[in-house]
């Protein structure tokens, strides 16, 4: 599985090349539309897999306000799923509302874990005195 750090690098690369951008950005719009989660009140980053250390760390560090809103969105979507209905159109998540609210925390948590692994496996050469 690729890490969030790799995903971030890939998306930056795509956005930096006009040709790639002109292909992938419209494709992503189609993907999101077919996915339909915005119509149930969810942001893209509400769908990320939660059961791992990086995500748990990021969720713990999320500001209380953002965390509350996230839980509210998930509860709303759950209700919409149970009742087999989409939300009214005015409650859909608009593209500009679908922010990267979790990514900075995910990247930081991943960087910390990576640094710890590097330091745990460091090979030290004795210094010549």
């Amino acid at each position, binding site marked *: 599985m690729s890490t969030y750090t790799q995903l971030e690098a890939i998306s930056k690369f795509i956005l930096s090349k006009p040709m790639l951008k002109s292909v992938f950005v419209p494709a992503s719009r189609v993907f999101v539309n077919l996915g339909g989660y915005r119509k149930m009140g969810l942001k893209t980053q509400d769908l990320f897999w939660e059961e791992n250390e990086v995500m748990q760390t990021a969720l713990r560090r999320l500001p209380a306000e953002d965390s509350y809103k996230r839980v509210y969105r998930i509860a709303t979507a759950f209700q919409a799923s149970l009742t087999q209905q989409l939300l009214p159109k005015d409650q859909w998540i608009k593209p500009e509302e679908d922010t990267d609210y979790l990514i900075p925390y995910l990247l930081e948590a991943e960087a910390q874990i990576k640094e*710890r692994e590097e330091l745990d496996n460091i090979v030290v050469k004795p210094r010549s005195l």
Partner: protein
Amino acid sequence: MLRKSVGQLSKAAGRRAFSSTEASGLKITSLDDGRAVSEVSLIVKGGSRYSQVPGTAHLLEKFAFRDTAPRSALRLTRESELLGGQFGTQLGREKLVLTTKFLREDLPYFVEALSNVAKHTQYKAYEFAEEILPLAQAEAKKAAGNSQAVAIDAVHGAAFRNGLGTPLLVTPGVNVSLAEVKAFGEQVYSEGNLEIVARGVIEGDLKSLVADNFAGLRAGSVQSAATKTYAGESRIASASPEQVVTFGFAAQPTPAFAALAHLLSSRSVKWSPGAGALDAVASKHGVSVIVANHAYSDASLLTVSISGPSAAAVKSASVEAAAVIKALGSSVEPDAAKRAVAKAKFSAAEALFAPAAAAVDESAVTAAAKKVFSSKPAVAVVGQTFALPYADELF
């Protein structure tokens, strides 16, 4: 023969054993004793005295050697372990001291680490919530279980109220926000506020490293209102088995005042009851008497802590100690004054980086005793407050 050698020694003691210089606006005091281990401390004028909300300085102390922009806390710890170095912090009422200790050749690494703390600490929100706050609260809780420390803190509060009287550690119920800690840190780690003291380093090397690493510090320094002293009383009920009564005499920080501590309690030999005026009181009542001189830039506090497991014994010892102290206010035995002067001279000379202390003689000590011990002290009582004496029963 003996007299001559003593004269030669005192001449040697008068010579400056350390050198001082300046780089990037920081005063550097250093001493090269040729050892393989070096010690470099960054002395920050940022103790509890300067924190607007009690506990800010304590939290800032815990933020030292944490994540900085160039190097994370984990990396600093692991790299220091590999280099065989150590770092630590110490918080006082006026000064926050960051100390690093390392092998001589690692000077550049640790000077850079100290400069990173001053210039690039990141004050991360999750670090504050996950590590800094719990650690500071645990330390405060530990200190709250130590009646002696509680009494010393309370007597500072009673004697100075604001400034030097601000509680040293975080206080339960007083919330300090991360923004306040960060603002305090940015104010405190500034050019006029820092000083470097080093031992076992070559002065020229240290100076050029400090000039490189500490360049571009914010200008400025912290200010605090001039200290005023009071004769208050503080009574703290505590479940701890130790009963403590502490007197605090506040005065200007003069060398004669520093010698008064030796007049009250003077123990030179292990297991001896001591020759100070209060040592006899301690052994008579089976309590412990600890006398300490807390010297600050514009005030000193001489604290006398009488403690023991029995409130009745501590009360009778306190009454007698107060009487002894009052008697010292009217007359001091010449022998006792002479002894106090000798002890004061020794402790002044023993300090590594102390500037040459002004000479104190017996008459100065007697005069200081007259002035200080005839005034009313601040009193703090910790333990079974119903059984321990009130200030007006003592002085």
